[in-house]
């Protein structure tokens, strides 16, 4: 059940930024907030399957690069048109400088 997977080094992601992580045929987005916390969601926008890692992180929002759809990456909540479906989120922890994401 607790299937923690190493995604990247903590320093690989700038503050207030996002990085793509592919694992077992799926893609995820790993975020580092302005408060230096880490979060993870599904990597593709729920609107048209665009990689969110190419988007813009502002405070607790990730904006999709294609249609500017916005999500709260901490909760996965869709924040208005054109996104209507929430993102799935995943637990994240930082251990010995590594970002781990729980996928199990």
């Amino acid at each position, binding site marked *: 059940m607790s299937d923690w997977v190493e995604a990247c080094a903590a320093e690989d992601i700038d503050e207030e*930024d996002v990085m793509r992580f592919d694992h077992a045929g799926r893609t995820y987005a790993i975020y580092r907030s302005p408060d230096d916390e880490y979060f993870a969601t599904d990597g593709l926008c729920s*609107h*048209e*399957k665009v990689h969110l890692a*190419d*988007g*813009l992180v*502002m405070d607790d929002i990730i*904006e999709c*690069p*294609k*249609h*500017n759809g*916005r999500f709260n990456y901490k909760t996965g909540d869709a924040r208005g*048109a*054109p996104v*209507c479906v929430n993102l799935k989120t995943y637990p994240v922890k930082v251990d010995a400088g590594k970002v781990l994401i729980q996928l199990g």
Partner: protein
Amino acid sequence: MTAIMSPALSGRDYSLTGRDAKLAVENGLAAAEWYHTEIPRKQMKELMQRSDQPAIRDTAIWLGALILSGAGGAWFWGSWWCVPSFFVYGTLYGSSTDSRWHECGHGTAFRTQWMNDAVYQLACFMIMRNPVTWRWSHTRHHTDTIIVGRDPEIAVMRPPDLVRLVLNFFGILDAWHAMADMVRNAAGVISAAEKTFIPPQEQPRAIRAARIWLAIYIATIALALYLHSWLPPMLVGLPRLYGAWHHVMTGLLQHGGLAENVIDHRLNSRTVYMNPISRFIYWNMNYHVEHHMFPMVPYHALPKLHELIKHDLPAPTPSILAGYREMIPAFLRQLRNEDYFIKRELPPTAKPYREELHNPVPAAAE
């Protein structure tokens, strides 16, 4: 630039529920992966950064000029001196709202979202575009830019209807259709085409907006009748007609005469260098290839983006006049052969077009 004759299907079906809509899906043109110029993430992040300051400044100038020119028109009402005031007021009302609606709809003009929403609602009303319907139609326009049967915002369909184009410089047909759509939506009716791109949960909001607008227009007409004066509609509604010329002039240049059914914005969009006044009215949407490739970049950063990627794009059209000198002959030629389009040449520094991805494949250069 090279003129291309393509062996396209004869007779296009631009409806969103017709033959070409199905063909676009079958041919992989719907929601396809489009070409992007490579930009390092660090530079892209800098370009995407949001700021309230440029848009607050521009909006203050815009609203200030709108109020002053409107007041001037009302003050001089009844004399010829009102004409220059209404020329300015109309252009700000019926043309600059096209870019304000657009940029705020993307959510990129301001960093603060409520400011984007407020200007978006105001501009939508002035340009007569339902704020819900057009948010979703524009989403589709960015997904399937100038894909026949998929893009609801193709301004010039082939063969071009030149009478319609000329009439729209005075907003005549656009405003008529907008009014008809508003009344239909206010009556609670969402068309079959609208249902293809507006999700069901959003449709009641489109109806509510149409009802609010209808009430405003009824109040304006009632005031005009009460005052026995054309002044109220000269300030609310009619500027969408007598001030439309600039947004139609710049809007036609965006994609006019260029390729259809391709998945590379360098083939179907046009960047045009413009004078500073037009760029203020148009909020830098003259950098149109850049905007379509990277819609996350705010209008105020588009000139910087243009400098960064112009090595990978066709040479920009040097002026509005040059754009029309290129476009009008193409429109005339499309009257005889609707498969004709302008293919823009890339500089030697650019990555080549991936011709195999485009349908129809250009057959021969002249």
